[in-house]
């Protein structure tokens, strides 16, 4: 019996120790044992992967570089993972992440490879390059997705039925809403159960803010202008409040999810949906037959001759400066942006907007909403969203817009609160003037 006990305890200790060692070594040994030309890519699970995978398949075939994807959650949880993995030196060779203010919060100069000298950078749009660079002129990222717009998606069938026209001013839009409401449909879809969707009216108004006050982003970054005291910027919050005050949203907008909102738009029970164009791939998957009933127009301002889209710059791939395979990753990036790489990308997906790469012909079968956007891009009537022009984005915006958009606060109170919120972000980033 005693012998058995001894054996048993020895056995248990061995099992525990082996388990412990395996646990410690696991992360490193698995990647080291594979062939040399493998890169790891950390990517968020809410990104549409098929286009990216079409390109990585091509890179593996033609350039012999195998891509191993690691997934992380999107949203703020994903931000945490990015920051933690960078801080602990555990980042993958290539990281997929937002451009603009969120990138600035990652201290790019310390963590990512400067790609400004790479020849392929010439064909990347300058407006995109600005959102992935810093003051030193270094450029850290290559575009990984298409350009999106934050705008008003609408159901064309209902527009035809009710004889409505695309509004050129905010007042026209409100008049349309009134008619839709009178016809017994939801004029504006609210899906505030997922709080980020409540930000679109405010964020998608940046074209109008800039039309009135072109230097606002710089002054805002330098702590010289505040949202609450800049009439053009405050107007964005007022628009949000007005939609609630006039009762244009679905009754249960606080409990409605993004998926349900999309469904309402596709089925025409809801007619307008202020949203990002990332809704298009979702529509294509769930409601392919209705995809081309959906059009899009920019959030109008107060003057009919200034009309344009607020654009969201693509997410980007960044090369980990402290990774083991910087050279392989550089080759990977070059192949990703090669003509063939871009072609594979375009062929594999339903685009939700134009690419940030010059000289690419979009296929004929892009969704109707993308066709609606393209003229604006061709004529230059677009402006990046504020988060791509300033490193400042307060973390509580979605809660604040939920409150303003559900009548808990006035536009001015909301804007003031957000100004306070931004102050913390500025201090954490160590910006001058705060």
């Amino acid at each position, binding site marked *: 019996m005693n012998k058995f006990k001894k054996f048993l305890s020895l056995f248990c200790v061995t099992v525990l120790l082996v388990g412990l060692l395996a646990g410690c070594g696991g992360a490193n040994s698995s990647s080291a044992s594979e062939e040399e030309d493998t890169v790891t890519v950390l990517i968020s699970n809410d990104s549409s992967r098929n286009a990216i995978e079409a390109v990585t398949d091509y890179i593996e075939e033609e350039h012999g570089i195998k891509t191993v994807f690691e997934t992380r959650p999107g949203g*703020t*949880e994903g*931000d*945490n993972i990015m*920051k*933690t993995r960078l*801080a602990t030196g555990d980042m993958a060779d290539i990281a997929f992440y937002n451009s603009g203010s969120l990138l600035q*919060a990652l*201290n790019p100069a*310390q963590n990512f490879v400067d790609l400004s000298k790479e020849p392929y950078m010439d064909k990347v749009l300058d407006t995109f390059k600005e959102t992935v660079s810093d003051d030193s002129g270094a450029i850290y990222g290559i575009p990984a997705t298409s350009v999106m717009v934050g705008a008003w998606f609408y159901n064309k069938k209902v527009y035809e039925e009710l004889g409505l026209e695309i509004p050129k001013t905010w007042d026209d839009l409100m008049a349309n809403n009134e008619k839709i409401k009178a016809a017994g449909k939801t004029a504006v879809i609210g899906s*505030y159960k997922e*709080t980020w969707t409540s930000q679109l009216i405010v964020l998608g108004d940046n074209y109008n803010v800039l039309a009135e006050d072109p230097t606002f982003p710089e002054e805002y970054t330098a702590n010289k202008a505040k949202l609450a005291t800049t009439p053009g910027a405050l107007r964005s919050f007022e628009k949000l409040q007005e939609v609630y005050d006039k009762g244009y949203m679905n*009754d*249960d907008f*606080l*409990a409605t999810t993004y998926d349900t909102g999309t469904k309402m738009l596709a089925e025409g029970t809801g007619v307008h949906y202020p949203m990002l164009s990332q809704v298009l791939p979702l529509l294509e998957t769930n409601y392919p037959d209705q995809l081309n009933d959906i059009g899009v127009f920019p959030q109008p301002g107060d003057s009919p001759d200034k009309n344009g889209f607020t654009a969201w710059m693509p997410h980007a791939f960044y090369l980990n400066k402290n990774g083991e395979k910087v050279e392989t990753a550089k080759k990977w990036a070059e192949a990703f942006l090669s003509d063939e790489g871009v072609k594979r990308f375009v062929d594999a997906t339903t685009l939700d907007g134009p690419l940030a790469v010059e000289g690419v012909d979009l296929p004929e079968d892009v969704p109707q909403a993308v066709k609606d956007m393209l003229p604006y891009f061709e004529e230059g009537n677009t402006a990046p969203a504020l988060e791509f022009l300033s490193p400042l984005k307060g*973390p*509580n915006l979605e*809660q*604040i817009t*939920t*409150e303003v958009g*559900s009548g*808990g*606060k006035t536009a001015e109170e909301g804007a003031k*609160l957000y100004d*306070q*919120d931004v102050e*913390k*972000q500025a*201090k*954490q980033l*160590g910006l001058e003037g705060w």
Partner: protein
Amino acid sequence: MRNIKSNPYTYFFLLPAGAIYLIFFILPTILSFFFSMTWWTLTDWKFIGLENFKVFLSEPSMNIGFRNTIIYAIVTSGLKVILGLLLGVFLSMRLRSVGFIRSMVFFPALLSTIAVGIAFSTLMHPSQGMINTALSFIGFVGPDWLGDTKIALLSVALVDVWKGVGIATVIFIAGIMSIPQEYHEALSIDGGNAWHRFRNITLPLSRPAMNTVIILSFIGGLRTFDLIWAMTKGGPGFSTDIIASIIYKQYQAGFYGISTAGNVILFIVVAALAFPLYLYLNRKEVDL
């Protein structure tokens, strides 16, 4: 003394557990007091004194957060005590299939809080949720449980009670079962009825159990986080924010110093409320 000397195990056996406790509990606690006074980006830090505490306390949702935390702790611990006691008395009677009912009551405690939160936020959907559909069958119009800022916090608290009352009940059953039979015999000789039995025997003598339940559920209520996060994420707006969810939002935003300061504040708040309560309750305990 004899006991210690004859102990066949040396104190070295405590080392592994002690080391783990030191590294993963004591050390981070001490470090967090330090980092709460720094501007911190995980890789870089700068000492800035009490600035973080100032920023955290002037957080716009802080008033709501403090109020909600206290309300939540009182409502959940109060309801758990009352319901737990009633269920405990009921389930310590000699009933048929009492074992089954006991397991039924305890069952929610076994579920993952996040799963419970997600399930209930679906059940509480104002127009398609099962709760309001059921209410409309009997002619009531149910409220928007999680969307109405006035009742959202209470809705979450009720779910917390549903989930936590099982543990309270088990503690009460244990307390009631340990009351010696002699007291009941004495009472029936004196001609007492069921109410007398509850009032004069069960209630005073299950005091230790009740104190355990109050302390556990009160502290649990003060630092609750997962259920609120799963059901409302502090929303709509800031209306169901509690201290823990405000801390988490700071952390999510990358304000590591501020969120650490928030944790120190939460630690102090919990200690400042729980210790006096504990001392007060202990003084009122009656010996068996």
